[in-house]
């Protein structure tokens, strides 16, 4: 199911998991990032507990301001007893998480299928 009221993300329900993808291939504009944060927050209200996969397919650039929104998302999901997984990061974006040790905060998967499989295992 696609949620047309979102401007910065696309969502899809797969096997009880919400897969989130970004509309922009370069997530960097300050106003768009604020909007992104609001939309990610809203997502956590839609399903309890939230089970989210943030899929980075086609994302060529992701700023640290955008990462901050993901950190807030992760905390909110955890508070609600849910889980967040990341998938399909290109090597440079993966480096971004590695250099900052945020790969210890987020579970990162090679593919969307791997992420779904892992989330379903923990159901």
């Amino acid at each position, binding site marked *: 199911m696609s949620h047309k009221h979102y401007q910065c993300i696309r969502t899809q329900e797969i096997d009880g998991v919400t897969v989130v993808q970004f509309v922009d291939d*370069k997530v*960097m504009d300050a106003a768009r990032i604020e909007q992104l944060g609001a939309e990610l927050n809203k997502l956590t209200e839609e399903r309890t507990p939230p089970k989210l996969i943030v899929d980075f397919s086609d994302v060529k650039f992701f700023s640290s301001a955008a990462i901050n929104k993901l950190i807030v998302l992760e*905390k909110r999901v955890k508070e609600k007893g849910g889980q967040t997984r990341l998938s399909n990061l290109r090597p*440079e974006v993966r*480096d971004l998480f590695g250099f900052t040790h945020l790969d210890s905060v987020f579970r990162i998967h090679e593919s969307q299928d791997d992420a779904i499989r892992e989330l379903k295992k923990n159901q």
Partner: protein
Amino acid sequence: MKTSDSSEIARWELHQEIPSDPRLACELIRNVVATAEELGWDQAAVFAVHMALEEAIMNSIKHGNRRDLNKLVKIDIQIFLEHLVAIISDEGEGFDPDQVPDPRCDENVERCSGRGVLLMRQFMDEVVYDQEGRRVTMRKLRSPRTNPVDA
């Protein structure tokens, strides 16, 4: 930092002062990134330059000039055949980059700030602060590094 051989001519350069407005910074960075891509820089190097410029310029706007639109951020960028040099300076009070808490520590890793200096050092080949932290000079080699330098 040695920025270039005196005989070397830049293939592209930009020298601009902008008010402390993130929208103007975004536009300028897009221009630099598009140019690097046109000049044939690879995906990893373009990403690195993009990340470092974003962090350096936004640090100058937010923490240096404290978003004061009357204060300027000066941006000098030169792209040579094998490397890029970017010099970013602001009109703020300066800071000591060595005193910035390590964002990788357990107590800081989930904080929503403080990663800028680390990211610049990780993604660029050389990063040097002077003028009491009001100016940063960064260099990126066109060829990918094999062993990223730990910050």
